[in-house]
């Protein structure tokens, strides 16, 4: 997938979002900073890609821990300004753990301050090109995407990946309406002329029609049977936890889940499985999918 030379995608994994670097003569801009545990690698990659150029600004598509966890480290290293979607700013400024869903999910991030806010409809100069910020509610109610019309590039965050989109957290935690928001965001994307999507996770891709079609189908299935979304979400959350911790003792899994309230909340709201059954389901399904292995009583993330 070829992109203009003033855009560099640092493709990361699932625990850390991609980092997208824009080269401008008066200072570079980074979009998203990855998960806090990967901050050292983020700084090394950034230093490598910057080749001595100054980093003036860091902006976030949204403020989940896998996108903003490295903000503080990047700001410490470069003294850059940090801009977040305007709707995220109050929770970041107050470092409101509940709204940021940190303890709730068992995820971490390092506190940082907001210098600038970005609104939907705002125009930004990135890599010498004009980009428009677009509202992308669904996965996160305040998320933004960035669109470049001449080069037909969409930075989609977690609103659209090549095969799917980020968990619809609001529905999962009992705030109805996020299915409709997710649909409207996919419809916004489908009305754009797009050559390349730079997603929050995974490689940049060009076949946006195919990705949108499967995203709409997935959304239809979740709306018909929200327990499908719930089962998927619990597995994604546990996989994410495994990436954070490396391994989890199988015998301690019930306590591990109990310490992270999102698991019980989703289970109670959608599935109502006894705790032991929930553990058994998650482990066996993730093992079958090749996402984890059991080694001497420990759950280990499959390579």
């Amino acid at each position, binding site marked *: *997938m070829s*992109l203009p030379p003033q855009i*560099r*995608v*640092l*493709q990361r*994994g699932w625990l850390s979002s991609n980092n997208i670097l824009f080269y401008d003569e008066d200072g570079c801009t980074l979009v998203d900073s990855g998960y806090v545990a990967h901050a*050292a*690698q983020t700084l*090394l*990659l950034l230093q*490598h*890609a910057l080749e001595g150029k100054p980093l003036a600004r860091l902006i976030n598509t949204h403020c989940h821990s896998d996108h903003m966890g490295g903000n503080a480290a990047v700001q410490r290293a470069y003294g850059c300004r940090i801009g977040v979607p305007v709707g995220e700013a109050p929770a970041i400024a107050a470092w409101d753990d509940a709204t940021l869903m940190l303890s709730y999910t068992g995820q971490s991030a390092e506190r940082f301050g907001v210098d600038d806010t970005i609104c939907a409809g705002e125009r930004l100069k990135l890599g010498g090109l004009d980009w428009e910020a677009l509202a992308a509610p669904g996965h996160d109610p305040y998320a933004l995407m960035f669109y470049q019309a001449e080069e037909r590039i969409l930075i989609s965050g977690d609103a659209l990946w090549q095969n799917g989109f980020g968990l619809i957290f609001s529905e999962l935690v009992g705030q109805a309406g996020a299915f409709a928001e997710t649909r409207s965001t996919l419809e916004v994307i489908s009305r754009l002329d797009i050559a390349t999507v730079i997603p929050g996770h995974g*490689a*940049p891709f060009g076949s946006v029609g195919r990705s949108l079609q499967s995203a709409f189908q997935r959304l239809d299935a979740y709306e018909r049977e929200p327990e499908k979304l719930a089962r998927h979400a619990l597995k994604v959350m546990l996989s994410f936890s495994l990436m954070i911790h490396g391994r989890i003792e199988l015998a301690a899994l019930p306590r591990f889940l109990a310490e992270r309230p999102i698991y019980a909340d989703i289970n109670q709201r959608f599935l109502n499985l006894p705790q032991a059954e929930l553990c058994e389901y998650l482990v066996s399904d993730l093992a079958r999918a090749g996402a984890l292995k059991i080694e001497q009583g420990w759950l280990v993330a499959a*390579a």
Partner: protein
Amino acid sequence: MDPASGYCEGCRRSLEEIACWSQYCAAEKRAVLALLPARNAKP
């Protein structure tokens, strides 16, 4: 990154390989992937 080998502890790619990954063509990616099993064998 593993300070001894210089490879990522997760994926066993070098900093250069991770930084340039999205610019590699499919053949270049395959060439790097082919190197990884040997790096895994020598942690």
